[in-house]
């Protein structure tokens, strides 16, 4: 790791120029909880490390037009401390807060979690279910793209070589909305998801589902948006038939691998079960009951 240059640009334009100047040998740094591990293990060999945290706003959270803008480099700890965000998007917050230990939370960001592109990244299904939009800066200005279009395979993204993810936009929440993320790990802390499932719903006043998004993680090369699973809930009151249809849609969408953490059959079954449970927690939250608060792992 010796001889690596470190720079901390004060603007995104400088960060982009630095990426271009490094010609493929530059790596962006947010919290470093993936990058430093990879550098130490020799899997990443950058000549220049470009620290994003000096770019104004990139490590902060703000409210805008009733929604939220989460800076790509904002830490998990900061996200967990944000009252407004916890209230509006408890599923996104619980997913972000599942990443690693207290120490890792002090640094790990949603931008790093998405761009590292692990199929098991915990915050990604929750962001997809939430309908979060990425704000991406490049040499020709800014563009926006839904989170589900960013990962393209393990360790791969659709971002250009000179693009920087700046923020996630979470829309304003309609009344009677709720979200949830559940993951299965063999112990209670500090492990990689065998399966993750996130659900975000909006209900009408009597409690019928009027919109739903379902996303699953660790069961395919990237986190997946399962539109058919969302449709299975819409129009229902979360009755057994709707939930069985949701489970079936999730099971069909799963394309997992078998490894020491779980077989294909096990992962597929668990994904369906977690999606059902997450849907019920999201519904309870949408109805304003907090009894499911913090019911993760």
């Amino acid at each position, binding site marked *: 790791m010796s001889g690596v240059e470190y720079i901390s640009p004060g603007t995104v334009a400088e960060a982009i120029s630095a990426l271009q100047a490094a010609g493929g040998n530059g790596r962006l740094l947010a*919290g470093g909880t993936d990058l430093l591990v990879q550098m130490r293990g020799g899997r990443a060999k950058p000549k220049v490390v470009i620290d994003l945290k000096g770019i104004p706003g990139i490590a902060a959270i703000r409210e805008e037009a009733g929604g939220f803008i989460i800076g790509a480099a904002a830490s998990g700890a900061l996200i967990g401390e944000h009252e407004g965000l916890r209230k509006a998007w408890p599923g996104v917050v619980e997913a972000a807060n599942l990443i690693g230990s207290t120490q890792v939370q002090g640094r790990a960001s949603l931008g790093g979690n998405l761009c590292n592109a692990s199929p098991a990244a915990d915050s990604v299904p929750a962001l997809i279910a939430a309908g979060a939009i990425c704000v991406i800066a490049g040499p020709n200005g800014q563009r926006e793209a839904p989170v589900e279009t960013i990962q393209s395979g393990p360790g791969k993204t659709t971002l250009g070589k000179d693009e920087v993810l700046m923020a996630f936009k979470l829309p304003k929440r309609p009344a009677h909305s709720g979200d949830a993320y559940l993951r299965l790990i063999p112990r209670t802390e500090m492990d990689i998801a065998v399966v993750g499932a996130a659900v975000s719903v909006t209900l009408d006043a009597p409690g019928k589902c009027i919109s739903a998004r379902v996303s699953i993680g660790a069961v395919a090369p990237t986190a997946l948006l399962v539109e058919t699973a969302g449709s299975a809930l819409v129009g229902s009151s979360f009755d057994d038939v709707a939930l069985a249809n949701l489970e079936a849609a999730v099971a069909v969408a799963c394309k997992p691998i078998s490894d020491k953490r779980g077989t294909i059959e096990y992962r597929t079954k668990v994904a369906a079960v977690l999606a059902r449970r997450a849907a019920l927690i999201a519904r309870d939250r949408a109805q304003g009951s907090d009894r499911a608060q913090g019911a993760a792992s």
Partner: protein
Amino acid sequence: MSRTVVNAIVNGEPVAFLGGGGQSLLDALRDELRLTGTKEGCGTGDCGACSVIVDGRLVCACLMLAPEAEGKRIETIEGLADNGHLHPLQHQFLEQAALQCGFCTPGLLMASKALLDRNPDPTETEVRYWLAGNICRCTGYDKVVRAVMDAAADLRQEEKPR
């Protein structure tokens, strides 16, 4: 040269050291500043032996680059005792024999300090979750958790206006 001068405040004292993009804060603390109380167990964020507090946040010093420390306030184990007076956490770790080889202890103490700084009255469950990133291979965790709970009580007692 890819190393530059980094200015930071370590345990209340302004310091300057040479740091580069290939060097962790842990290496800088141990090799440049000779503060060897902070330990390296894994170097990959898994064990917590390198825990330090940076601008009030608990982090793994092995997962932060040395030049990122520019302008930051860093607390390490060397700053925990106050002029030779042990911190209540240190006192309780000794009292309750919450260490054997002691390799994990600086990290556990800094992690526990970060907890009590923001939550003076944690539940046992909160202590156990907060410390889940600190691994101890010899003592086990029950004595550690008891020491933290008792140190928290000691600190609350000290804070009480008399």
